[in-house]
Every structure is written in structure tokens, then in C-alpha cells.
């Protein structure tokens, strides 16, 4: 049966895009995976199952002996029931048959047979009897446990490029599987702050958590996991796959030999390029420092802020931000104030790309904004902090934000709280309005940050979360190149730092275009860092400038892209 394309949404837990086959994780206590066997694996798998039945039987008999000694025969009949289930044809024989006929692993067969029985139990009118399913549940757990204890075949030998699918996947399991071909992870429970998510990020395995309902995913089903958007596409159509292909490549894990080196990054013709890292969580800072980044160019604070679905109180925010700054040593950290966008399902009811986002949200929820600002200033004495205001579309919003910042500082002064009074305040250029008027905002800010993800979406009128128009989302569109060129020309005479921090900076060809247009500071995800560093070292600014000038007059996005790829990839 060929399934049709389905999209399941969750939240971003670990970035990156990957494709692979679903391996279903079953049972949260004794995690196991369901998969098809090769024909030569069927016999050994049946033996493995029978061994686990025998082992379970021995355990139960031992238990029974002990129970009889201690409390007489009264409670030992419960064990009888368990033992009888282990020799029940309805259960054991059917599992063996399934392994043999359907060529599936023992765990999967156990799951199928027990699920059918559970269903039958649930249909019973008799409440007492319905409760007997507990005995069966107990046996299932024991069998699964013993299957694992016998031999970790299912864990140690995942059969394909596996995307783990399950309600829960414990961090230890993910860690045990790290040397396997686990390419992604999607769970129903868990948040970006769960230990599994942290583990996934440190192993650079894209992950989506809090997904709606994964029960419909078939073991072995092919899927795309988009860790950048927090969604999975099951059985993608050919068209969808085509659209994703270039991005899957760029999101692939970096081989260890391509690790970044700490030396300053300069082009072939000696132009220094500043490379920073984008992070979503404070706990990523340590890895970033180790990786030799020069700055945290973008810390998307809403991920930490909305963890567990609740805002933090000021004290814990101060502790968190202080910790981030201390861990960063004196490296500058750009804290982008809360942006609730469609990518983050963090604030119920806020899911419009054209609605209350970024600074608009903060101005409407001033308590939240003030709490965050107070925490940021209080933490600022521990390092080099910068404050970045997202999704600004008018100077009025900027004024309002600056008033609130001034107010917060006055309050801290009054209370004689120590803070760094020189914390720069910057603006995110990510709306067409801001792109057109960035020079008019210059007197109100200390630095600029160019958010290409949103800028492209609003410029090209392409909703990033809408699959049907995704193929129109293209950083090589001449409109985008001209827009970026204009922003650079407007800001060139103004001597204030500009950093580009969208995905455009993370893909070598489009990042090269940015350098050609004049930008000298990029901030990218830690995973993209090595490849961008490598790209910078292989190009010459003089050539890229000439290339950019030609691109500005090309008609079609496709031609632009081809031209750039040819020029940049030839150097790598």
C-alpha cells in the first residue's frame, strides 16, 4: 500500500533537514524499534523471541517460589496467570507466526498481537475483566525487557537511515545509537529543552518534538524531517522531495574532518570576515565556544523563554542569561528579544506571519518584555551582551521599544542595581518596511542584523510554513539580491555594524553572494559554521563583487542560482 503525503507538525528541537525511513520506537520503558527482517534473519529472530519467552518463564517461576514461601499460595496464582499467558497459543504462537509470515522483528510482532488483544479487552463490558489487560501488559514488558537483555540486536543494528519515531525516546537511547545511522528523531512528547533534544543537538541529529500524532507512521515509511521548521513530511511526493533536495544536502551532518578551526577567517584576497553562531538555547554556547566562533550573532531567546510553555520569572532569567554570558567568556552575545512567529508553536493563538510578531508582541505584552529586559541588563555585567529587537516595521515601534528600555534602566538605577550601561541595542531588518527605511532607523540603534528568512518570505510573499508555495521561496530571486544590495548601500555611509543571520548566510553559494554584495559579518547555525568558514577561505572578494554585479541584472532565480553555484562550488 502506498501512503500519500502527510505533514505532521511539532516544535523545533534540533535544527537540520534530513530524509530517512521511520523506525518506530515502542514502549517507553524498554525502548525498542520495529522493522522488517531480511529472509535470513527470520529464523534467528524466532529463536530470539522463544529465548525471551523461556527466560521470562524462569523468572516468573523463581518469583512464584519466593512468593509461596513468603505469603502462601494466595498471591502466587497471579503468577500462574502470567505463566499461562506465556504458553497461550493465542499469544505466543501468533507472535511466532507473525515473525515468520510477515518477516518482522519480535518487538513489532509482540506489539501487533498485544494490541489486538488489548483492543478485545477494551471492548469487554465487565470492568473487572477489562482490568486484566494489566497482566498482559506486564508480560509484554517482561518479554521486551528480556529481548533486550538477551541480545541488543534491535538496538545495535538499525537497518537503514533511521528516523526514530515514538511517543518518547530517552536520551540514553539516542546516545547508545549515536554511532548508528540515526539521521533524525521525532517524538510526541518532549520539548526543545528536554534532555533528548539537547542530546540530539549535541549529536547534530535533526529533531522535532511535541508532534501531534505519530501513530499513523508506518515502520519503514520514507519521510523528510525538517528540523528547522519543526515538522515531518511522511511519504513525500516526488515534487516535495525535489523541492527539499538541495536543502537536505546542506543540512547533512558535517563529517568530523570538516570541523572548524579557530584561526581568524579571511578570504583568499585577505578580507576579514566575521563569523558568528546562531543559537536557540543557552546550552549551546559551550559547543559554540569550543568550535571557535567569534560571537553569538543571534540568540533566539524565545526558545528558552517559553520552555515548558511558561514564561520564566525574572530571577531565573537573570541566572540563565548570566550563565550564557559567563560561558561565552568575553565573546559578544546578541540576545534577540522574544519573537513569536509561526515557526514556534510557543504562544497559543499567535500563529500569523502578518500579525502580532516580534516587537509587536513585546509592545502588547509589556510585562513580559520588561521582565526580559530587566533580566538582560542585570546579567550584562557578566560578559558582552547586545540587545536585538526583532520584526520592526516602523520607527514608531522602535521609539516605543527604546522608551521602555530607558524606563527599565531608570528603574534599575533607582534600585541601584549594577548593569552594563553600554549594552548596544540593535534592530533586525526583516520586514520590507525596515529594509526600505533602515537608514532612517540608524540614529536610533547601535547595530543592524539582517534576518533573511523573514525578509525573503515577506518580499516574495511566500509563507515559509506553507508547503504548497515552498518552491517559490528562493534567496536567489533577483528581488532579494536587489533588496539586499539596497540595504547595504543605504547603510554603507553609516558606520554601524551589520550582520546577516538568516539561512542565506548558512548555505555557501548564497553566503558568497552576501560577501559579493559587501556584507562582512555572517552568523550561522553551529552546524553550518565549518562549511561557511571553508567557503570564505576559498573565495576572493574581488571576484565575488564582480559576480554580484552581474547577478543583479539577471532575470531568473534559477539562472542566478546556477551561476553562483558554478562559481562557488568550483573553488571548494
Amino acid at each position, binding site marked *: 500500500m502506498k501512503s500519500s503525503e502527510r505533514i505532521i507538525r511539532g516544535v523545533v528541537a534540533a535544527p537540520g533537514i534530513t530524509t530517512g525511513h521511520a523506525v518506530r520506537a515502542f514502549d517507553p520503558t524498554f525502548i525498542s524499534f520495529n522493522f522488517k527482517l531480511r529472509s535470513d534473519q527470520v529464523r534467528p529472530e524466532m529463536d530470539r523471541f522463544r529465548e525471551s519467552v523461556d527466560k521470562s518463564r524462569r523468572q516468573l517461576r523463581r518469583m512464584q517460589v519466593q512468593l509461596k514461601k513468603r505469603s502462601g499460595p494466595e498471591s502466587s496464582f497471579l503468577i500462574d496467570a502470567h505463566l499461562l499467558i506465556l504458553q497461550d497459543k493465542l499469544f505466543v504462537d501468533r507472535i511466532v507466526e507473525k515473525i515468520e509470515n510477515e518477516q518482522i522483528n519480535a518487538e513489532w510482532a509482540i506489539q501487533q498481537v498485544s494490541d489486538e488483544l488489548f483492543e478485545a479487552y477494551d471492548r*469487554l463490558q465487565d470492568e473487572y475483566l477489562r482490568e486484566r489487560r494489566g497482566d498482559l501488559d506486564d508480560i509484554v514488558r517482561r518479554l521486551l525487557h528480556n529481548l533486550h537483555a538477551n541480545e541488543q540486536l534491535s538496538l545495535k543494528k538499525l537497518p537503514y537511515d533511521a528516523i526514530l519515531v515514538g511517543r518518547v525516546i530517552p536520551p540514553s537511547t539516542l546516545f547508545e545509537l549515536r554511532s548508528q545511522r540515526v539521521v533524525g528523531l521525532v517524538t510526541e512528547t518532549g520539548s526543545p529543552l528536554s534532555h533528548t533534544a539537547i542530546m540530539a543537538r549535541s549529536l547534530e541529529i535533526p529533531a522535532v518534538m511535541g508532534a501531534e500524532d505519530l501513530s499513523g507512521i508506518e515502520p519503514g515509511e520514507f519521510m523528510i524531517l525538517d528540523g528547522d521548521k519543526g515538522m515531518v513530511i511522511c511519504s513525500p511526493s516526488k515534487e516535495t522531495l525535489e523541492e527539499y533536495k538541495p536543502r537536505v544536502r546542506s543540512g547533512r551532518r558535517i563529517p568530523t574532518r570538516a570541523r572548524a578551526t579557530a584561526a581568524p577567517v579571511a578570504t583568499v584576497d585577505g578580507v576579514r570576515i566575521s563569523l558568528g553562531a546562531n543559537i536557540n538555547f543557552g546550552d549551546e554556547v559551550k559547543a559554540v565556544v569550543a568550535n571557535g566562533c567569534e560571537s553569538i550573532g543571534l540568540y533566539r531567546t524565545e526558545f528558552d523563554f517559553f520552555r515548558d510553555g511558561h514564561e520564566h520569572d525574572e530571577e531565573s532569567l537573570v541566572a540563565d542569561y548570566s550563565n550564557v554570558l559567563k560561558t561565552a567568556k568575553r565573546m559578544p552575545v546578541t540576545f534577540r528579544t522574544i519573537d513569536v512567529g509561526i515557526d514556534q508553536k510557543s504562544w497559543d493563538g499567535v500563529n500569523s506571519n502578518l500579525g502580532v510578531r516580534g516587537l509587536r508582541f513585546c509592545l502588547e505584552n509589556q510585562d513580559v518584555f520588561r521582565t526580559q529586559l530587566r533580566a538582560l541588563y542585570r546579567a550584562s555585567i557578566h560578559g558582552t551582551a547586545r540587545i536585538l529587537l526583532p520584526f520592526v516595521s516602523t520607527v514608531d515601534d522602535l521609539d516605543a521599544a527604546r522608551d521602555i528600555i530607558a524606563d527599565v534602566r531608570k528603574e534599575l538605577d533607582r534600585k541601584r542595581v549594577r548593569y552594563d550601561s553600554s549594552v548596544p541595542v540593535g534592530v533586525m531588518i526583516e520586514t520590507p518596511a525596515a529594509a526600505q527605511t533602515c537608514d532612517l532607523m540608524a540614529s536610533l540603534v547601535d547595530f543592524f542584523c539582517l534576518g533573511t528568512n523573514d525578509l525573503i518570505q515577506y518580499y516574495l510573499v511566500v509563507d515559509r510554513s506553507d508547503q504548497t508555495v515552498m518552491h517559490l521561496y528562493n534567496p536567489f530571486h533577483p528581488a532579494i539580491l536587489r533588496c539586499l544590495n539596497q540595504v547595504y548601500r543605504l547603510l554603507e555611509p553609516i558606520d554601524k555594524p551589520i550582520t546577516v543571520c538568516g539561512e542565506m548566510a548558512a548555505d555557501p553559494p548564497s553566503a558568497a553572494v552576501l560577501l559579493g554584495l559587501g556584507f562582512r559579518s555572517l552568523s550561522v547555525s553551529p552546524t553550518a559554521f565549518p562549511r561557511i568558514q571553508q567557503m570564505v577561505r576559498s573565495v576572493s572578494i574581488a571576484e565575488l563583487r564582480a559576480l554580484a554585479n552581474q547577478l543583479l541584472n539577471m532575470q531568473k532565480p534559477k539562472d542566478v542560482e546556477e551561476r553562483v553555484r558554478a562559481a562557488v562550488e568550483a573553488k571548494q
Partner: protein
Amino acid sequence: MKEREVVIGHRLGLHARAAAQLVQLSAKFRSTIVLVRADDAKPVEADARSILSILLLAARHGSTLQVRADGSDEDEALEKVCEYLSG
């Protein structure tokens, strides 16, 4: 094959303990032993050696079951099983 109707005499019906004991009893015979509950529109069958199927029969106290035994010791099997079920 021999068959006979029997009314469940166990106070709690064929619950876990009774079911377990029935399985253990049935295992002593060579004959196949099947229980049929026919009070619903759709008759439900259970293998007397399968605890899960007996539990799924959900036979209550006072309900009527048809017992079938088939094999070399079917008479004795039917006798003992019915004796047990009637409590």
C-alpha cells in the same frame, strides 16, 4: 465429539483465578476442549487451554456455556471440565 451445556457456578464468573485453574485442568487431557458462549447474537468460542481466550469470553456467574470435548479422553474431559465450571 461430546458436548454439554453448563451454567457457571463460580461466584465471580470465569475470572483470572478460575480461568487459570481451568487452563491447568484442561491441560491434563489429550482432547481439545472448546467453550462456546451463545447468549449473544454472535457466539464466542474459547480454547480451554488459552487463558486469554477464556478471559475474553467474559462468562459471568449464572451464564450458560456449551462445552465441547473431542479426543480419546473426551468423556472424562467433558465430565471434569463441566464439574469444575458448575462450581
